[in-house]
Every structure is written in C-alpha cells, then in structure tokens.
C-alpha cells in the first residue's frame, strides 16, 4: 500500500445535484473486516462484523448510541485488538504482521478524533510536524512548509503559530484534519467529524472531506450520527445494532433509507419518521 497518488487516480464518484456521492466506486478493496468480534474483557460489544471498504469510498459507520461505532474505528486503526476475527489491509492482517509492517500500515492511516485531540502544548504547525518528523527524513524547514500547506488546504492559512486553545471548535476540527492528512494517507478515519459544529461549519467540513477524497483519491471512513452528513458524503455504510450486537445492514445510505427491510434502520435514517 502506498501513500502516493497516481496521475489520474482520483476516483470517479458521481455527485448528485445535492452534492451526494450517490454510487459506490468499483475500486479495489482496501480494508476488509472479517468476522470481527469486539469486546471489553468478557463484555462483547459487537460480533460477526463482516464488510469491505473500497478505494475512494466514503464509508459511514452508523448505529444507535453505545452500539460500538467508535470502538469499531479503534479496532480498524489498531488501537484495540480484536477479541476474534481480523482486520485486513489489502492482504495484510493488521495483528498478524510484525511490528515494522504494522508501523508501515499505520503510516497510511490518518485519524481525526471526535474532539480534535490536538496536542495542546504544541502549535498547529507543530501538531502537523509530529507525524512528518516521525515518518519522513525532511528537515525542519521543509516540514514547516508542508505543515503550512496542510493548514492552507483546510482553510487555516496563517494559523501555524496558534495553540489549539486559541482557536474555535470548527477550526480545531479542520486543524485535526490537516494533521490527519499530514502524511498523504491512503485512508482517513473520522470519529464524529460534525459533532458540536454549527450546520454551516458542518456542511463546510463535509465539503472539505469530499474535496480531499476526490483530489487525493483517498478512502474515507466516518463514524457519524449526522443524517445530513451521512447522505451528503457517504456512498457506502454499515449499520451496527446495539441490541443484536452485530451489523444488521450494509450498503449505500440512501438505499438503506428507502429500501431496507429493517424498520429500525429506516427509522434511524429518517429520524423516526418512517
């Protein structure tokens, strides 16, 4: 797996007039979750999860509160070890490969946390510099220039020397995104990107995610409750059921809303109206 983008590699994802990514891409499978069981000790959160994510997908993980969406994300990025089953990147089982291969896999992830998780003792540029210093041989001047570029990409040009505590919540989310794309990752994970944002900021962040996906050709995995975001950016999804402790559906969110045989999913995707 490489973090570079090929000439003309941006996926051809059609956008409807609403801006929605309305059909799945037919790219290669980049992540495969196989019969995954997640547990905290003896408490099983979810089991028998089975789905694939293709290159260029904006893949939504959704489900009711407490169903284990963020836990699934933590399993996918290697913060938690599966109780059973596998998470495969290409043909690599994340937990079966050795430490150096795992580090190489991690290099291709970008992660944006629910509350940004920017390091508060560092400026925004320094936050972005940390992964660059860890994984590249660039000198401090080049790292600073790349950090400036990443901040400019998320609309924060000029804010390099600000501390996270000095910027707004929306800016913090964008700065977290800048850090997540610092290494030009293949896959970018978002945990509740719109949480706590006003509708306009939320929409702008959605547009930014779409734009970055289309430009970089990266794959995006998003945990979110926001229906507007789900339909605007998502072209594939999985629904986790807290009661059944397993996934009860997967597919394009609009398809699930309109045609899912499960009334719970239809209710979820229409805010209880269907």
């Amino acid at each position, binding site marked *: 797996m*490489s*973090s*570079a*983008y*090929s*000439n*003309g*590699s*941006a996926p051809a994802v059609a956008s409807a007039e609403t801006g929605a990514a309305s059909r799945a891409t037919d790219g290669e499978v980049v992540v495969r979750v196989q019969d995954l069981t997640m547990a905290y000790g003896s408490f099983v959160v979810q089991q028998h999860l089975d789905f694939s994510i293709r290159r260029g997908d904006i893949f939504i993980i959704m489900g009711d509160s407490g169903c284990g969406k963020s836990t699934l994300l933590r399993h996918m990025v290697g913060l938690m070890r599966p109780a059973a089953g596998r998470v495969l990147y290409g043909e690599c089982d994340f937990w079966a490969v050795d430490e150096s291969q795992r580090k190489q896999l991690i290099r291709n992830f970008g992660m944006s946390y629910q509350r940004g998780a920017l*390091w*508060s*003792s560092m400026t925004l540029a320094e936050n972005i510099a940390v992964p660059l210093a860890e994984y*590249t*041989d*660039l*000198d401090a*001047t*080049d790292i600073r*220039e*790349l950090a400036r*570029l*990443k901040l*400019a*990409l998320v*609309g*924060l*040009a*000029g*804010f*390099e*020397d*600000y*501390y*996270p*505590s000095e910027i707004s919540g929306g800016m913090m989310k964008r700065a977290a995104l800048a850090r997540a794309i610092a290494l*030009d990752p293949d896959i970018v994970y978002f945990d509740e990107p719109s949480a706590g944002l006003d509708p306009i900021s939320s929409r702008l962040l959605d547009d*930014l995610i779409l*734009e*970055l996906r*289309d*430009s*970089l*050709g990266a794959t995006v995995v998003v945990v979110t409750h926001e229906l507007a975001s789900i339909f605007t950016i998502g072209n594939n999804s999985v629904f986790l059921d807290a009661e059944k402790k397993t996934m009860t559906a997967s597919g394009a969110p609009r398809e699930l809303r309109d045609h899912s045989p499960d009334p719970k999913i239809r209710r979820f995707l229409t805010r209880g109206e269907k």
Partner: protein
Amino acid sequence: MSDQADERDYPLDISVVAPDILQLRIRGEWTTRARLPGTTALETALAGHPRIRRLRFVSDGLRHWDSALLTFLLRVQVLAGNSQIEVESDGLPAGVKRLLALATAVPERRGARREQPRTPWLARIGKRTLAVVDAATEVLAFIGEVALSLGRLLRGRSQFRFSDLLLTLQQTGAQALGIVALISFLVGLILAYIGAAQLQQFGALVYTADLVGIGMARAMGAMMTGIIMAGRTGAAFAAQIGTMQVNEEIDALRTLGISPMDFLVLPRMLALILMMPLLCIYADLFGILGGMFVSVSTFDISVMEYLHRTREAVHLRHFGVGIVNATVYGVLVAIAGCYQGMRCGRSSSAVGAAATSAVVSSILLIVIATAILTVIFNVLGI
C-alpha cells in the same frame, strides 16, 4: 525555502517552447523524499530567458505524486507571481489542480499571522511589573473569596457537601500516612547520623536524642509534611480543579448558582488544614523513631537512655511550634493548589502547568513562612 533537490529526486524538464512560454515537464515519481523539490533550476531558466511571460505544465509522464508536488507548484506560483509571469495549470492532473485551488481558496485571514514585535526592555520591565501586580491582586481576591466562603460555612449557609470533606480528609490524611512515615523516619535517621558524628567528638553522643527530638518537633516534622503535602495533595488539588475547569464542570456549578469556592475549594482547604497538625505529630514521632534506630543500632545508646533524653529535652512547646508551622503550611499549600486549579486554562497542558505551579509556589511559600515564623518564635522566646 530548501535548496534545489537533486534532479534525480524530482525529474523535471524545462524547455522554452515559444519566445514567451516556458514549459515544465513533470515526470516520474514526485513523492516526498529527504528534501522537498526546490525551484533553483526554474529560477536559472527564468533568469536566462527574461522574455518568458507564461509557464506551462506537462505531466503525462508523471507516475505518483503527493504533497511534495503541491509544495513545488505553490513555490512556482509564488516565484511566477513575483515576476509577473502567468501560470497555466491545464496540464496538471485533475486532483493536483483541485488541491491547488483548495490550498489557495481561503486567503490568509488578515492579522491572523503571529508577529513577534521586539519590545523595548523598559516596556518589558513595565509589563512584568504589571503582571506581578495583577497576580497579587488575583491572589488577594481569591483569599477574600475563601474568607467569604468560610463566613458562609460558619453561618451554616455554605453550599457544601459533608461527604466531600470526609473523602478529602481520607485522601489527604489516612492515605498519606505511609509516605509521611517513610520520609520522616529517614529524615530522623539522617539528622541522627549527622548529629551523632559531630557530638561524638565532644563525648556528647547522648545529646543526639535532643538534636533529633527538638529538630523534628520544632521544624523538620512540619516542614517535611508540608513538602510532602505540596507535592502530593497540592498538586492533586490543582490537577483535579484544573481538569474540572477544562471539562466545564466549574461552569456547570456556576450556572446552577453554586459557588465553586464553597463546593470545591472549601472542603479541600478544611481537610488539609485539619489534617496537617495530625500528620505533623505523626511525622515527629516517626522522625524520633528514625533517630532512635540509628542511635541504638550504630552508636550503642540504649533505648531507655534515648527515650529519657528525648523526654528531658523535648517539651510540649516544641510540638506546639511544629503544629503552628504545620497549620500555616496547610493553609498555604491548600491556597496554592486550589488557586492554581481555579485559574487553570482550558487545555491539558494548562492542567500540567497548574499542578507544577502549585507545587513550586507551595514549597516557596513554605520556606518563606518558615523563615518568618522562626523569627517570630525567636522574638517571642518560644
């Protein structure tokens, strides 16, 4: 800006395709290496062809690219802008064009960039002085609020949870017994070793008990307890209250009309002030035990002899001095810890800074208070 990276690192062909058009053919791999691509070759080409008015890109030979290409293109844009040269980006891959547009879509907000103006030294002294005055005012206001809170408590109108006080008493008192015992025992042991070595020269070895007993009871017991409390409890107060500040828990109290001084600061202060004298007596006893251990095991003084000398030398007033010291230290450590917690910023690093400041200021205050109290007791002949 970096120097020009090696041509083999980022393959680029520069050619003049018309009298006023320079063509940049980007080919091969443009992924980040040890250096970002520079623009020295382009600058040289432009210097050699002053009639160039347009830059054109060709990228059909480009295989893989990442942010290295983007930084190069942004550098080219700046360079071209400075020389009034137009950049035609039609020949770039679609993703690159979109990212370039994205990077330049939101112009830098006016005034956003941090300038670091050079402040004259006189102004710096003035600013520092004003900051000290502000800090002193803040501390006084905090002490005033504590006094008001105490007044409400005495009138029975404090918004105060008795269970919080009990919990803090346990945390500051009972749970500190182990560390206080260990440190005090070792301090008594050190005092005895140093004292006995000197006293032995005058054949006054038995007075080691006097030295350890008076030293522990008057000063060392209280001071060591104070320092332990500063590092353990004062820092914990600052971190607990600071974290509540970060999580907006203090704002939640205020919006409910509950005074954080009553609810958070007062139980902690009371607990520490109540526990410090008790811990001090406990520390005194363990210090004396430490001294006795050395005297008996190393200098052949009998247990009875040591205890007898201690009883002869150490009076209740010596313990009294220690207890007064300990109570003052308790007030100081509690104020420093709670004050730093209450003025903590809203980030995790601010919590760390608050805890550090609490410990440093507590220890500083303890030393200053010891000096003042020693003079006072001396003047009073106690």
